[in-house]
């Protein structure tokens, strides 16, 4: 019975080809530093999963955001765990992505033929920081609010277009309900979608060119 189902699916999906294409690839001898990329992906998935579940109770409005987060922390079974993982996952993700980037830099893995992999990768790093910045406001507590006031003001000092950037970031002149809902939208739709797409491209490029070998003295 199971075999029949497997054969039926394999005929259509091609498990064997998938196995060859995705898993049974030759690679240069790697070391533990090479695991940071997949660790970043793992953290991205964890953030995605916990983030999706947080939206079950979270409400992005100044009147409710704080109380709904308090409710997640204290009123819902395991809410503290889901939020705790999301909170610490953000910190770890920034750290791991950054160290991953340094590893690639110091082993010069960004050189021919992996230039584009690096460029997509550094975009991923910036997107991760963007996730951190937009996610920080969502609990709408003192820390979040003031950090966002200061953070968006930094965008506002650009000569000429500063006031425009400030208003575009905040959705008006003040940090308000509009800021919260646009940060929410950016945090849960726009950035994750861009991140997921860029991760796909990044992974495709890695598979296409293979993992880089560690540089030796004659490289």
């Amino acid at each position, binding site marked *: 019975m199971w075999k029949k189902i497997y054969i039926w699916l394999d005929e259509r999906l091609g498990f064997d080809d998938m196995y060859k294409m995705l898993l049974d690839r030759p690679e*240069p001898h790697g070391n*533990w530093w090479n695991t940071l990329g997949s660790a970043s992906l793992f953290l991205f998935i*964890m953030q995605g999963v916990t983030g999706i579940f947080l939206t079950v109770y979270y409400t992005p409005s100044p009147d409710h955001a704080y109380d709904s987060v308090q409710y997640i922390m204290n009123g819902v079974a395991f809410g503290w765990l889901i939020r705790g993982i999301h909170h610490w996952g953000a910190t770890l993700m920034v750290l791991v992505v950054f160290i991953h980037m340094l590893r690639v830099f110091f082993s010069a893995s960004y050189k021919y033929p992996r230039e584009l992999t690096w460029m997509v990768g550094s975009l991923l790093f910036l997107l991760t920081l963007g996730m951190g910045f937009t996610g920080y406001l969502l609990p709408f507590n003192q820390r979040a609010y003031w950090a966002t006031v200061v953070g968006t003001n930094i965008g506002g000092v650009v000569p000429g277009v500063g006031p425009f950037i400030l208003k575009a970031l905040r959705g008006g002149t003040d940090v308000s309900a509009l800021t919260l809902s646009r940060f929410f939208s950016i945090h849960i739709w726009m950035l994750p979608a861009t991140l997921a797409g860029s991760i796909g491209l990044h992974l495709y490029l890695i598979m296409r060119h293979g993992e880089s070998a560690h540089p030796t003295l004659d490289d």
Partner: protein
Amino acid sequence: MNDETKKKIKEKYEAALQKGERFWPDSIYKDLLVSFALFILLIGLASFIGVHPEPKVDLTDTSYIPRPEWYFLFLFEFLKYFPGNLEWVGAAVIPGILVVALIFLPLYDKNPSRHYSKRKFAVGLMSFIVVGMVFLTIKATLTTPPQEESLVANSIAEKMSLGQDLYSIQCVECHGPDGYGGEVVGVEGLEGTIIKPINSQDEMYTRNDDSLMSIISYGQPNLGMVPFGGAYGGELSSSEIEYIVTFMRYTWDDRAEVPADAVTSAIPALAEGEVPSYEVHISALVKRQCLSCHREGKENNNYLMDTYAGILSGGNSAPNVVAGDMNSNLLQLIQGHELTSSDGTLIHVMPPNGKPIKDEYIDMFIRWVEAGMPETAAEATALSGE
């Protein structure tokens, strides 16, 4: 880069692959172990450190020190080095250049060598930037003054309890412990004013939470009520006002379903023969019944009751309580006996509004003094065992 070099690089990579490993199972195994370690780390951080509770947004709280998330601290600190008119250089130009430089690194880094010994400039520059970022982050952390901790209520029950504490300090002098109001005694400028009940059905049904919060915040100048909101010169933050309103709503509004985990009495009752302790009973009792006057900045004969030591030894007519002495000032006064101090001034009956505290609370004070005024619950248990 010419085709020759490209070919060489490819050949070398092929050679490396020959001596290499397979993605499955070799690499995946390591990846998995690292991811699993991160997973354990995350669960550990979430379980044992958790998320620091932060107070709700309060635009009137001017003492709050804004700080970004730690990974932006270096940028935050970096901006300190730019005078006002050059701020845009530090905030936009330099980070902008760095970001562009980072993204397009492979396009202008024409050095074909990969080993770090042949890339001294690149490695040196990046190390300098990273060390700089770490330095700025550490410096920002060290120079951040500690944030003043504020009370954060986690549930409606906790809000009610904190609200009652605040009510007992800020509101009781005029509105009484249960909101009945009546004649004000002993409040400067309002002496003798009759205050209408605020716990009535009328009041509770016709004022919603927002309007109660506004009243507490602005006060009612025409009726003599001073503002309590921090924005108008009072002592309370907006969260604290919200706690008071939560307390009022759930205690006095008969339409409100009180949450099951709400504490019905903040002052634990005494069992037969149990010795009360400062820690468990007396501090709670004092907070509700005495502290609104017997704290810093009020007229109270310098008798500050906010600490154990203060209760024992504070005040102009100290000591007000002596272990085992049933004639201690405090016990006499709460039982309605006026006293004359050594310099001949009259000490009023407590509380001064002529409404004595409940008998069970008087009894609690008496039993505490009688047993020798134990501070901790453990001491009290030891005493009741005798």
